[in-house]
């Protein structure tokens, strides 16, 4: 018996419904202790002897031809070891993107240092390497970059401009279609048409990016520290781009100060520190400052949609036809066209839609490149789709809740396959009771009673309103993830996963699953993640995939170890495995009768490599399992808000908020609630505060946290969270669906709906964010 391959029937075991011993319980996190003691290891905390500090010289205009870069003064400054421009890194290819179905994007990828042209303010043009961070910054300020200005493209919906000779600023158009869309519009009772847009905002984690590379010549290994999210893919690409075998490159993850989609992608700085460490044979440390972060790290969200719906007399959708413009910024980054693709694939959401056509114009502009941010493509399209549902309701004079009821996919229609794809997988809504959750949410929020109360407040002169948005998320992107569970000779349990952590509680969730399956204490389990030197493959932490994919693999590997332990114990105790159980790391009789027992430590020692009993077998109390999935699991939910607009300032106060979210199964309800409330804060930020603004020449205006406004506690409403487990996913043994993005997804749509209601002007809100000046203008012109 070895732990390498599953045995017949093994994969069939699923986690029983309801809370278990540890799973389903709001236990405290195993991550927290070093973090509250100030003993964390974030990127800036990583130091190596003899390290050099890298400072990036960035473009100061949005589009220009590089005439010259003069670094002579910088090279002569004290402590400066090297200054590099594009010519010094000409051998490093453009930074690639992860494969999707969309082809032809290669010419639009970003070089590690700008060649010939700069295309956004903040683009790396040169780097200074010095023995001290302050000195590197001093020297960088003396590097003179002479640029000849070129015309800028700032509006993705404007006619395309030139990216480079022979390439315009529209690399591709994402098209999807099913059903007879023209017939739907010919037979429509009514056609509702809207122009809608979502502003440019992004994850903006509190820790900026950082990268520390070190070449270990003794072992011929290039190490990169301060990494996150996609270590294995990044490792493979760094190796390829720098001409090394992947085995000679290792990525390490310490603590990660928030990811939200933007951190852990392969950026120019990651490759620059690696190349410098190899060439200069000294460790290279780069820590981004906040101004850099706001112009250099991925932006997101900016789209404008022209959407039309054909409906019948009862308000049932017959077809949706959408044309949108996706503002990608200056280059294609590691996601390729993924956000536009997700927007196109996920737009229909929870509604029955007989015909659909979408054309997503993927456009480059002279702004910071964009990619995913929590609920990518869904925050945007939930706003668009739910605005559309509100508009249909208004046009046909049907209640907004009723219009949704009439269109929601029914439980009997699950699994509901759409002739569409997203992230390269077919969209098959796996399970759900959409209307049931809507009812629960409305009841919990006191929807009907609230409307009476709001009417009374309006009569008294207040500008108050309520809104709702229904959303469908996606989670658990495959195809695979592996986990190795090992009990060592002292009985300590280690879970090694190919997942990563961005601070969301991965370690605790995986430890709970392992503890439940194996029969040990969750709090002493060591969870290894984000390290390429401990596991050969991994697909990382993104797209709300970890608990589904790595969680399922942890479940299966832990069960395999359990079985192995029980079989060993059964032989030694002369009982059958079925008569035994494991609790607190001790194998005892399952019937509770007194009798001999064995600890997992004793069993692990018995399975050691020098144990005669192991001769001819693979030693160790250990098992590795891989979970595979062809389809995503689709969580869903409802956002409900009650808001007030200050008639004097146009400022919106969110008074009350409910997020109802069915995630199939909550491994840890406290962590799920934390994800939802935290996600909501970001969603509200994008709805009411956060925006990367540019002047007409492409100069960014939101380059400090005093200009780019993140919600503080003062902007957060009281939030009620309804975690539902009505529709476990049939696609994995835990029944789980991802919980990371539902709190964000519906926020923009919900606030827009509530503001419409407060203004008493259906359809007034057509864009996000809803800034006070705009609402003040709407209030003034209101009848």
């Amino acid at each position: 018996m070895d732990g390498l391959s599953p045995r017949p029937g093994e994969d069939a075991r699923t986690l029983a419904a309801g809370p278990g011993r540890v799973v389903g319980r709001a236990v405290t996190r195993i991550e927290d202790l070093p973090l509250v003691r100030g003993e964390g290891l974030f990127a800036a905390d990583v130091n190596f002897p003899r390290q050099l500090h890298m400072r990036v010289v960035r473009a100061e205009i949005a589009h220009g031809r590089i005439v010259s870069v003069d670094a002579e003064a910088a090279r002569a400054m004290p402590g400066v070891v090297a200054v590099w421009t594009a010519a010094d890194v000409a051998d490093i290819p453009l930074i690639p993107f992860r494969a999707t179905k969309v082809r032809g994007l290669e010419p639009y990828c970003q070089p590690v240092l700008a060649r010939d042209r700069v295309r956004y303010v903040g683009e790396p043009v040169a780097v200074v390497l010095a023995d001290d961070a302050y000195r590197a910054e001093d020297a960088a300020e003396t590097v003179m970059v002479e640029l000849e200005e070129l015309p800028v493209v700032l509006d993705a919906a404007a006619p395309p401009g030139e990216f480079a000779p022979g390439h315009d600023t529209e690399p591709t158009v994402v098209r999807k279609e099913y059903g007879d869309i023209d017939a739907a519009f010919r037979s429509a009772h009514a056609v509702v048409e809207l122009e809608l847009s979502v502003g440019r905002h992004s994850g903006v984690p509190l820790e900026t990016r950082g990268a520390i590379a070190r070449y270990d010549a003794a072992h011929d290994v290039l190490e990169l520290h301060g990494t996150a999210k996609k270590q294995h893919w990044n490792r493979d690409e760094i190796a390829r781009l720098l001409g090394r075998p992947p085995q000679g490159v290792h990525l390490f993850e310490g603590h990660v100060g928030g990811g939200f989609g933007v951190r852990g992608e392969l950026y120019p700085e990651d490759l620059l520190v690696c190349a410098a460490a190899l060439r200069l044979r000294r460790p290279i440390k780069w820590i981004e400052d906040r101004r850099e972060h706001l112009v250099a790290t991925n932006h997101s969200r900016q789209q404008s949609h022209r959407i039309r719906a054909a409906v019948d007399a009862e308000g049932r959708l017959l077809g949706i036809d959408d044309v949108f413009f996706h503002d990608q910024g200056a280059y294609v980054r590691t996601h390729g066209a993924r956000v536009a693709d997700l927007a196109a694939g996920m737009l229909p959401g929870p509604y029955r839609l007989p015909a659909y056509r979408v054309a997503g114009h993927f456009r480059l502009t002279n702004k910071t490149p964009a990619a995913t941010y929590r609920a990518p493509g869904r925050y945007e399209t939930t706003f668009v789709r739910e605005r559309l549902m509100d508009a249909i309701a208004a046009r046909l004079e049907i209640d907004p809740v009723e219009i949704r009821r009439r269109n929601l996919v029914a439980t009997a229609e699950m699994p509901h396959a759409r002739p569409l794809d997203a992230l390269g997988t077919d969209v098959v809504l796996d399970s759900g009771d959409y209307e049931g959750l809507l009812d629960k949410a409305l009841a919990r929020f006191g929807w009907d009673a609230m409307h009476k109360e709001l009417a009374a407040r309006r009569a008294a002169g207040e500008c108050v309103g309520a809104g709702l948005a229904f959303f469908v998320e996606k989670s658990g992107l495959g195809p695979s993830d592996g986990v190795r569970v090992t009990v060592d000779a002292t009985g300590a349990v280690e879970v090694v996963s190919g997942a990563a952590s961005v601070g969301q509680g991965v370690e605790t969730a995986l430890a709970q699953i392992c503890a439940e399956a194996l029969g040990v204490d969750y709090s002493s389990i060591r969870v290894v993640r984000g390290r390429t030197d401990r596991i050969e493959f991994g697909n990382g932490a993104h797209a709300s995939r970890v608990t589904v994919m790595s969680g399922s693999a942890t479940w299966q590997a832990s069960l395999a170890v359990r079985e192995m332990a029980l079989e060993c114990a059964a032989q030694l105790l002369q009982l059958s495995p079925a008569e035994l159980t494991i609790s607190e790391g001790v194998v005892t009789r399952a019937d509770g009768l007194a009798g001999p027992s064995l600890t997992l430590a004793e069993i692990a020692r018995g399975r050691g490599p020098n144990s005669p009993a192991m001769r001819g077998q693979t030693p160790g109390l250990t098992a590795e399992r891989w979970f595979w999935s062809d389809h995503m699991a689709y969580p869903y939910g409802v956002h409900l808000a009650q808001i007030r607009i200050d008639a004097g300032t146009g400022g919106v106060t969110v008074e009350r908020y409910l997020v109802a979210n069915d995630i199939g199964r909550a491994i840890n309800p406290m962590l799920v609630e934390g994800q939802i409330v935290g996600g909501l804060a970001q969603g509200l930020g994008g709805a009411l505060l956060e925006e990367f603004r540019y002047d007409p020449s492409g100069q960014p205006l939101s380059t400090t946290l005093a200009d780019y406004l993140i919600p503080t506690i003062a902007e957060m409403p009281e939030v009620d969270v309804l975690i539902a487990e009505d529709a476990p996913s049939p696609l994995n043994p835990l029944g789980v669906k991802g919980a990371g993005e539902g709190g964000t997804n519906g926020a923009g749509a919900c606030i827009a709906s509530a503001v419409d209601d407060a203004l008493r002007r259906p359809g007034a809100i057509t864009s996000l964010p809803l800034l006070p000046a705009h609402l003040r203008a709407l209030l003034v012109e209101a009848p």
Partner: protein
Amino acid sequence: MTEALDVTLTVNGERHAVRVEARRTLADALREDCGLTGTHLGCEHGVCGACTVLLDGEPVRACLLFAVQAQGRAIRTVEGLAEGGELSPLQRAFIENHALQCGYCTPGFLMLGTALLERDPTMSDEALVDALSSNICRCTGYANIAKAVRAAAAEMRERVPA
């Protein structure tokens, strides 16, 4: 660049003799010269509060102070909160109430919260929200941070009867 100055920083009761340029921030001196990396930098322009430390008991932004300005003052950082290995009531409350996710803003919030609790553990909810609005957390949505400070306040009120 500029001449280095000899400065003695008293951090969590320990004296650190460091040699720094006049322009070196207190945050950098704590992190790089004293080796106390628990104090984090989130924006380096005084908005986010991640670098909050206590200077003679008052919460300050360590990114907006120069190390030389802290000479002769009592500095407290997150590393000094646990006494003899035992977590402070606020540190414990942060764990029990899931008041942290990535943990990057946590040292700043712990120091801010410690100052608030030492000043007035009976403060109103409104005053608490007002005070906590000076720091940014990007993960939690704040509800659990406020809950943790309230829980620690309740524990401290029980310990020291008014």
